[in-house]
């Protein structure tokens, strides 16, 4: 990792990541990649988010779907843990709640493969500052 030696350095790094360099490094055709975020805070992990995340990573690979699965913090829906957010290429992110292994399988098979929504969507109910 290069040290950030000036404010300009920082802005450069920030810009480069905004453009999704990370994604590009991981895939030759970044526009087609599926992004999955698993809420891995204490509350999520306690409800099984770790298993869900492991399952999603390995199954997506096994089923030949190009995707990156990353962890993130608490989304706030404690009543519906584990929660995951799936972003299909070119589409708005969709959050699913109570994603156990069975549900994860359904999400891969239906939503990720065919774009067909499945039960258990958690509608976004907040405003962001972006």
């Amino acid at each position, binding site marked *: *990792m*290069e*040290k*950030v*030696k*000036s*404010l300009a*350095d*920082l*802005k450069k*790094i*920030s810009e480069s*990541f*905004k453009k999704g360099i*990370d994604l590009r490094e991981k895939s030759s055709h970044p526009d087609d990649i599926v992004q999955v*975020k698993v*809420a*891995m*805070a*204490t*509350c999520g*992990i306690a409800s099984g988010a770790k298993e869900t995340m492991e399952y999603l990573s390995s199954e997506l690979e096994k089923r030949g779907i190009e995707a990156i699965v*990353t*962890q*993130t*913090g*608490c*989304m*706030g*829906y*404690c*009543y*519906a843990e584990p*929660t995951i*957010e799936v972003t299909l290429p070119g589409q708005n992110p969709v959050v699913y*709640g109570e994603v156990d292994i069975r549900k994860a399988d359904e999400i891969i098979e239906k939503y990720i493969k065919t774009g*067909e*929504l*499945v*039960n*258990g*969507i*958690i*509608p*976004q*109910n*907040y*405003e*962001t*500052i*972006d």
Partner: protein
Amino acid sequence: MHLLVCGGTGCRASESAGIEAKLKSELEKRSLDQSVQVISTGCFGFCEKGPIVKVMPDNTFYTQVTPADAETIVAEHVVKGRRVESLIYTDPSSKEKVEESAKMGFYKKQLRIALRNCGFINPENVDEYIARDGYLALGNIITGMKPQEAIEIMKESGLRGRGGAGFPTGLKWDLTARTEADQKYVVCNADEGDPGAFMDRSILEGDPHSVLEAMAICGYCIGSDKGLIYIRAEYPLAIERLKIALSQAREYGLLGNNIMGTEFSFDIELRYGAGAFVCGEETALIHSMEGLRGEPTLKPPFPSESGYNGKPTNVNNVETLANIPVIYLKGAKWFSSIGTEKSKGTKVFALAGKINNVGLIEVPMGTTLREVIFEIGGGIKDGKKFKSVQTGGPSGGCLTEKHLDTPIDFDNLIAAGSMMGSGGMIVMDEDDCMVSMARYYLEFTVEESCGKCAPCRIGNKRLHELLDHICKGNGKLEDLDRLVNMSNVIKDTSLCGLGQSSPNPVLSTINNFKDEYDAHVTDKKCPAGQCRDLMEYFIIEENCVGCTACARVCPVAAITGERKEPHLINPAICIKCGACMEKCKFDAIIIQ
């Protein structure tokens, strides 16, 4: 096309399952079930107007839908592409129909500032934080601003401490900046301890860098190069993520010497707390970090004059810090435009108790309790009646129906007899006994008092004993006066905030639910049916078929009766274990 039907608990109670079935059958009838899917979703957070059906992709938002409306939606909207006007939500203030959910006011009920990155970025990857303009505020400040200028911005923003007391953050920084010393410290108070509260944990687990960045900014402003995070050891994941964040920030040189090529150096150490609630009090926290017994000392001197190792120390809470970088990026004016006159910005709450959507929410100051509980929180579980909401943790008070339209901010909650606290919000329904509730909180404070000052150490114990006495049906009317006097004296004489607020649950329940206390002491009854010692099990003669199941399961042989004849419970023998009630298949046993 997708039809999203709210499957949240609130909407389920109002027949959303029926709507879902009806929609499906209507679609099948028209052979549309392959092209249009009916999806059940989690709560939309608008339970007041439920059940909700949302049509995708055009984002039409139907409220108060009945199963009968399902046919209209399919026939009109799905088949003909025409919106069903009668089901579209009317904005109560503008009286205008709002078709698209994105334009609806209730989405603005929650605004994520402190939680802006939580659930969005990977907390273990600093690059994602940087991509979201992370460390930019720090960079701007240390390369282009004098400390005093940055403090002025903090003052203008109107940010107040989110740990409970609501002290203005800018003023605190200013005080510490003005104290001359060879060494100063920035301390992050991550000793979250209120029962049911986990705001700070979620922030540290989801967005550790914003806390680190804010601490560095504070360091620059007050003239400190050393930060300490006091975090409870029971938060292992938060600790791990902080450690990762610290090492990544150091690798980038965002912490350490000469940050971004400037003269400013700053680094942060972690300190672990052993889980004593009182160590959330800043002087106790500092003593604990010094290796001393975690107990408070009298203020003044304030930590801004004499804190850690006797040096000027600025202590800020996690959520307070999480607000700070974005205030510098978006400006003090932007921040102060959110919230109420004296409480700016948002507040994160951990919603818990008898509420449908238990979870973490962030709302602008000034949002009413009603909005939080009935809209964002999805209302009361199992369709029960709302009774009370407890805010401010063990030091807060219980608010009632009449407070529901109080806009939440620091001063309003205090005026209503509770307090903001760190953000725990526990909702109670008609089944919750307010006397036992007060007893529960006192049990907590008795357990968590450090024991240094007499009123908190002994007084709280005596309060708890008396409440227990009353819950057991042994109370007398004059005991209520004693409760009030003891509570007032404990508040008036205790050394720190813990004792000064620990009687709040007692006082607020006596104020708001006096009749419940009266019922306990005069009628020896618990109206909520929670105090077991005040309850009796009865057999309703008409319902009893004399199957003898109850008599056989009773561990103390308190139930007698001939086979096929109504049975009888002898209250003198009954130990109120409830086994009979569980066993009875004929709903013949009740508790009164």
